């Protein structure tokens, strides 16, 4: 694999966002993943989402670990700052980066192996710390780069390409995140861009930890008969309970939704996440019931998708640490270094 830059030729009639940038300005290097890989669809959705919310490219921080999914940070927003770190440890890099500068958009891209096996500990703790970031798992149930081993998200009974059947129970990122107190938990499908783009936008705007687990079939190692993470299986077995629309500040809500089925959540900058419930009985604000629902459907072999849980952001990392509004990396040293007099004074207790 080599680095392949994309030619930058933009047609003058391409639509521009509030910053005067076209979608092309949010693209990255050419993907070197397999043709038809679900991850590439997610990359396209991220490009669309970032363009749509008019995020300044160099304010976007793209973080990842190791694996096929982690490669994708190179394939979108080449004007952003990318950091392809080590396997399973992206959450700690994200925590440090966010601690240093609270004012940027942090997008962590991970996979099911990177998050649920080698990185399970860091995944849990970044949720506990409630770092303001979008954490996106490209979930295909399989290790691609090492050629087809089961990952920890593989379902019991799912069949590998070479015929082996998985017998160990899966770890489900969505259930785990809700259990650990994440305030924004979603599941989507790489083949459903209409659902995914607004979810990404909402996740980017959510002022706390936001998880989107995206089922993203691996065309090479996990798209066969008997796999529960294939395109065909996912299409047949997914049910959306709550769709999210992301409404920027400047845009009025024009679509009329049936009363009682919509719910509007205002973000700190005035933008809104509009929830469209397809099942009127589903309450995305209640994490316990949401978990039970997801688990119950899962036991029937179904994936529940959409914005499964949304709670007003509280105890965000910087709020807990009482850091200033000015990012820590921009505080002048005159504010950080106490000086000679203070040093002399504080040594009194050591004399």
């Amino acid at each position: 694999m080599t680095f392949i830059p994309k030619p930058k030729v933009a047609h003058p009639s391409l639509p521009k966002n509030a910053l005067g940038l076209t979608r092309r300005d949010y693209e990255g290097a050419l993907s070197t993943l397999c043709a038809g890989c679900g991850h590439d669809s997610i990359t396209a959705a991220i490009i669309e989402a970032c363009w749509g919310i008019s995020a300044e490219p160099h304010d976007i921080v793209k973080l990842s670990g190791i694996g096929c999914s982690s490669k994708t940070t190179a394939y979108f927003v080449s004007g952003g700052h990318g950091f392809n770190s080590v396997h399973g440890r992206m959450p700690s890099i994200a925590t440090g980066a966010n601690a240093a500068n609270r004012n940027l958009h942090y997008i962590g891209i991970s996979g099911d192996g990177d998050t649920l096996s080698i990185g399970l500990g860091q995944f849990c703790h970044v949720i506990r710390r409630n770092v303001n970031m979008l954490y996106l798992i490209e979930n295909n149930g399989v290790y691609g780069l090492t050629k087809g081993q089961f990952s920890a998200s593989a379902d019991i009974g799912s069949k590998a390409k070479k015929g082996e059947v998985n017998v160990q129970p899966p770890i489900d990122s969505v259930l785990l995140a809700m259990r650990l107190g994440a305030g924004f938990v979603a599941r989507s499908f790489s083949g459903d861009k209409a659902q995914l783009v607004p979810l990404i936008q909402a996740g980017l705007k959510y002022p706390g930890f936001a998880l989107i687990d995206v089922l993203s079939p691996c065309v090479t190692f996990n798209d066969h008969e008997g796999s529960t993470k294939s395109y065909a299986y996912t299409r047949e077995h997914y049910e959306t309970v709550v769709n999210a629309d992301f409404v920027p500040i400047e845009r009025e809500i024009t679509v009329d939704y049936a009363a009682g089925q919509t719910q509007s959540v205002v973000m700190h900058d005035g933008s809104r996440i509009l929830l469209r419930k397809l099942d009127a009985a589903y309450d995305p604000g209640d994490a316990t019931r949401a978990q039970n629902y997801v688990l119950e459907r899962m036991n029937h072999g179904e994936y529940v998708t959409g914005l499964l849980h949304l709670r007003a952001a509280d105890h965000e990392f910087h709020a807990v640490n009482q850091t200033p509004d000015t990012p820590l990396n921009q505080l002048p040293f005159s504010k950080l270094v106490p000086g000679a007099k203070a040093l002399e004074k504080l040594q009194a207790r050591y004399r």
Partner: protein
Amino acid sequence: MSSAPSRVNDFVIKIATVNGTGSASANTLLMKSIFRSGIPVMGKNYFPSNIQGLPTWYEIRISKDGYVARSGKVDLMVAMNAETYGRDLREVAPGGYLIYDSTWPRPALLKREDITVLGVPLAKLCNENFTGVRTRILMKNICYAGVLAALLDLDVERIRELLAETYAKKPALVESNMRAIELGYDYARQHFQCPLPLRVEKMDRTAGHIMIDGNTAAGLGAVYAGATVAAWYPITPSTSLMDAFKSFADRLRVDPDTGRRNFAFIQAEDELAAIGIVLGASWNGARAFTATSGPGISLMNEFLGLGYYAEIPAVIVDVQRVGPSTGMPTRTQQCDIMACAYASHGDTKHVCLYPSNPEECFYMTVQAFDLAERLQTPVIVLSDLDIGMNDWMCRELKWDDSWQPDRGKVLGREQLEKIDRFYRYLDKDEDGIPYRTFPGVHRKGAYFTRGSGHTQLGTYTEDSAEYQLVLDRLLRKFQTAKRYVPKPVIEQDARTDIAIVTIGSSDGAVHEARDILRTRGVQLNYMRVRAFPFGEEVEKFLADHRLLFVVEQNRDAQLRSLLTLETRVAKEKLRSLLHYSGLPVSSKFIVDGVLGEFGEGRRASLAGV
């Protein structure tokens, strides 16, 4: 009483207690009162990896000459733990003293004829005068401090003054503690001939000095370096460094107007996350650090390789403890020298600093941040338990208010505005150090950071030539580092071609050993390396000598190995003196080692004259 010759301001007290009984405050009280009388003093704590109930010792060395090492002998033992009476008795040097709690008489302790055993009914005195089990236990400790005050002729007013400072907010405690002091003091005056031949006498050698431990000093250094992100996982013996940073930052870094804290203090889930957080924050332009010990360094290896290859600053303080594996967590060694120099897989080398005392912990921690940013690489400060957790007398810490941090080669908004394109890993200045940018500053500043193969333009590569170009530049950068790191401390006299080379906390014992050897006609030159990579001064010193004793505190001669690998020195010239018991090296060990190497008869050749 034995009629030993008077030893004023030159002896060792050892206090044997049970951990968790609150003896620390009594020991600090004793030490500080001696320090405030102008007498150089050093405290070393030998404690178990345990919370309550196991034997623990505290050693106070009073040294008019200012020696800081363990002397290797005990003149006065305060035996407060019946469980260890046997070994404590054996440890007292002939002509010495042993004090024990004679509430329960132990005639067996009187069996040694060459020392003086003094019984004080401490428990009885405290039971009669105080109520409550916990109070009685605590006061028993303060009471032995009173006994020592009488025996050693300590200034009781100094003790009162210290108690008043310690319990400024609880005056009742000053009175009760003072009562315990007086109980012991009066008992000793009534029953023994006070003072003993070993006693203290006022001096004026501590002015301009403080008593501080290395972890406190390093934590303070991180505050003064402007660190804003501190991430860590608790591990003995480094935890108190982070505690110190937190407590100083809570006092000095809270905005008086808003109450906001100008730092983030993050207790991570493990050392892997701690170093990840540090790298993430440093990559994003904050000064960030972590403190750990050997097992933590092992866990951080993968990330240290990323920091090296992706060229991200980071400051790591490794407070070394006894290995391998869990080893002895509360004992000291210098056993991570090799692990830190070459941490991580692949071709990696790291800049390491080796402080020898708390004073250097302060300054070197500050310097580590400058070096990390100047060189864009992790910098490891190798302290150890002896420096980190013991109270050392050292010069007062000074700060120059004109100090400016060295942020290294960072392109800001204006500079990026002026250039055509930014390439992260280009060696524009031919010193091996590229330029970096921070996210969110300018559209032209964006680049991609990765631990996978990359070109000097910052793009992914699997091309051999492009890969090697970057890897070779990293080696040039490491050469450049030699110009920036602290130079060795050298004491060289042309009349001899034999020397001692040492590192870190072994310095104190070597210093004293050289003085002792000099009195025996053996003159040795001296070099203490203070950083890796080794610069030309180190090369030259090694080349200048025919024979070099390398003193260090590990089994495998790690400093010697590193010198052999990274300098031109001939291996045969380096003779190891290795101390790795877990106790700090003593001057006696070095003196015996040097003399033993040659035998008494060959001292003339050793002196090189």
